[in-house]
Structures are given as C-alpha cells and as structure tokens.
C-alpha cells in the first residue's frame, strides 16, 4: 500500500505528465466539438461514433510512455527507487496500480466527454477501461524501451499506421489488434486486454532480469 502511494505521488508530481493530461483533456473537448459540428454538416459520424477516441488515445499513449520513461532519464531515478523497494515484481505491480489510479480520472473525463457528444452514455465505462488499459500498455512499452521518444514513436506507428492499415487491408485482423476497441468495443475488447496483459508480463519479466 505504501509502495502504491509512493508511486502515485511520483506520478502526480511529474509536470510533464500533468501537462500531457491537461492537453489531452483540452484537445479531446475540441475534437468532440469538431466532430459534433462536422456531424451537423453531414460529416463522418454514425458508424464510428466513438471516433474522437481514435485520436485522443494518443494522449494516453504519451502519458504511459512518459510515466515509465521518467524513471530511466539521466539521473537514473530507477536506482533510487530500487534502493527503496528492492523487490522488483512488487515494485512493478505498485507502478501499474498507481498508473491505473492516476489515469482513471483523465480517462473517465475523456470518455465522458466523447459519450456526451455522441449521446451514448452506455459506452463511457468501456471507453474509460480501454483508455486506462492503453495507458498501461504504453507504460509497459516505455519500460521495455526505457527511452521516451523511441517508445512513443513505436506506439504511435503501431496505433496510427499499422493498426488502421491492417484493418483496412485485412478486415479479419480487426479482432486481434489492440486498438480496434477504441472505435468498436464489441470486436476488439478481448484483444486490448490480452495485449495489455502480455505487455505487462513482458515488462515485468524484463524488469526482473535486466540491470537497472
């Protein structure tokens, strides 16, 4: 419990994380307004009703990568962290829990805004869960790569180039991709959970094996 509390305070006092959360919330509101305006002018809505999420999730990818990479910046905060909590797997669990608790309000805010615009509040919970899971996945990748920009580049390429392309070309791949659930929860929910758990396990394995 102490460990989770400590990790949470570390996250909440990171200025870059706070800025990213604020930017994500602000940009999401603007996006929702744009979609609503486009919808009233006969633009793209309807089928991809949760469409703003597809763009807004970029903020959560950035938050996850930031949270994990901040430990590995110069100054190697991770060594101090390990001095305080030498058992690596409990530390990893505390980090994941703190990240979930920390991003939950932001994710709920974004999901509620999207649902409000779409007028489909039944999907708020699903969207919130998706965004939190995405953040955890991003943090796992950030912990594996240990550097912010490369991790973010990999995540953005996966979510914004590889995912859409694969769905466009091989429609049957949609249920297997981690980002399908952003716009189509009924098809990709399981994939999101499995990808996130796999990334978490891989990151935990790497943390327990690699030198800090």
């Amino acid at each position: 419990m102490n460990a989770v509390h400590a990790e949470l305070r570390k996250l909440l006092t990171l200025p870059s994380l706070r800025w990213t959360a604020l930017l994500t919330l602000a940009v999401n509101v603007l996006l929702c307004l744009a979609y609503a305006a486009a919808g009233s002018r006969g633009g793209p809505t309807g089928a991809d009703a949760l469409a703003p999420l597809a763009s807004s999730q970029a903020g959560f990818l950035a938050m996850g990568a930031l949270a994990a990479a901040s430990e590995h910046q110069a100054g190697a905060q991770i060594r101090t962290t390990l001095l305080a909590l030498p058992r690596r797997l409990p530390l990893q669990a505390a980090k994941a829990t703190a990240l979930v608790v920390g991003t939950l309000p932001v994710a709920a805010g974004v999901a509620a805004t999207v649902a409000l615009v779409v007028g489909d509040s039944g999907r708020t919970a699903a969207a919130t869960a998706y965004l939190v899971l995405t953040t955890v996945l991003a943090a796992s990748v950030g912990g594996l790569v240990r550097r912010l920009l490369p991790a973010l580049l990999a995540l953005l390429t996966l979510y914004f180039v590889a995912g859409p392309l694969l769905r466009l070309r091989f429609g049957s791949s949609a249920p297997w991709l981690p980002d399908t659930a952003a716009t189509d929860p009924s098809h990709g929910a399981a994939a999101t959970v499995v990808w996130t758990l796999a990334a978490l396990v891989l990151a935990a394995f790497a943390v327990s094996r690699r030198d800090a």
Partner: protein
Amino acid sequence: MSRVHAELRKLLGLPTAWAGLVLGVVLNPLVVLLNASATRRMIASGALTDVADLGLQELAVVVIGPVVLGVVVVSSEYTSTADDAPGARQLTTTLAAVPGRLRLLAAKGIAVVLVVAAQATVATTATLALVQLLYGDQVPAPDLPRAAAAVLYWVLTALLAYAITLIARTGVVPLTLLIVNSTLVSVSYLLTKVTDLAVYLPDLAGTRMFVRGRAFPVELAPVTAGLVMAAWVAALLAAGCILFQRRDA
C-alpha cells in the same frame, strides 16, 4: 560549412533519427503494396477516376520520417547527457561550440533539409516505381514536377516539426501531434467538414501541391498551396528562432 557538417553528424548519430529514416523510406511503398489488390479492383470497376494520384496520395498520408527527423534534431539537445549530472544537457556543449544561436539554428535547419530531401527522394522514387511496377499500363508515367512537389512537402513538414519542437522544447508534443494528424485519422481533414478555412492548414495545403483527386471545399492551385504551407513554416520558424534567442538554454 563545418557547422552544417557537425550537425549532420550529430543527427545521423542518433538511433531515433535512423528509426525515422528507415520508417520514412519503408512505410509508403508498404502502404502502396497493401492497397494494391483493393486498388486493382477499383481500377477494374472504374470507381477510381484519377489514377495519376496513385502513389502520390500515399506520399501525402504517412509522413512519419520527416516528422521524426525534424523533432529529434532539437529534442536530442534537451535530453540530459550524464547520469551523474542530470542538469547537464547537450545544448550547453553545443552552444559553447557555436555561441551564435541563429547560426546554430541555420546549421540545424540545413542539416534537416539535406537529410529529409535525400530520404524523400528515395521514398518518392521507390513509391512511384512500385506503382509503375504494380499497375503498368493502367497508370500514366510519373509526372516529375509533382514528384518534386512531394519531396518539397516532406522537407517542409520536417521544418514544421523542427519549428514546433523549438517552441515546445520537448519532442513529445510535436511528435504526437504531427504523427497522429498525418496518418489515416487526420484531424485536419475532419476540420474541413467544420470550416472551409481548414484547407489553409499547413498539411492540407501542402498536399494540394501534388495530390489532385480528393475533393475539398476550396480548390488551391499547386503553387498557391506551396506558398501557404511555406508561409506557415516561415512564421513558426521565426517564432521558434525568436524564442530560442530569448530563452535561457
């Protein structure tokens, strides 16, 4: 000259820059390849009216390479250099070697332009050659001015990323913003449904230099489109230069 040479070597010494170089060269031909069978069907059924856009369209959509290069040339200067001295950043050393800040920015800009121009030439050639290979007689021979405009678009996009990173002093914001916007879920394109003015956004205006087929509320002539994007880049670069001169490193 030696400053540009130094900046080129610094840029090409970054692993992330190489990731950007490789992604930029590989992704666009890959998009063409993945779309091939759907495109063939569309040509056969006559649904595709403007086949001259094939390939060029793909060059307009995924511009990760130039964005990464434009971002890391600045953001790498702001990361700490040593574990035991987290406050020490490469920028301090760089400025000790090149105290003239505008000269430094000019050297960096030239280095980015050179690398991205080379990358864009390779990517454009590969993409258009692949289109010729895949569709043969069904598409016209590549139009050289339009291919050159695509290269120019990539270079201007890199300078846009460079300018925004100078202003933001972190790579996260411009990298996320520009990659998300340049891919298949383009926010700029959504904005054209909200206001006609959105066609003057730098990325949309820039693509009008060489892509004709997409329907837009306001038609821009290729040269006008280029000038609009160049004006954006010039304004942001000016803002970035002023801030870089005024702020503590």
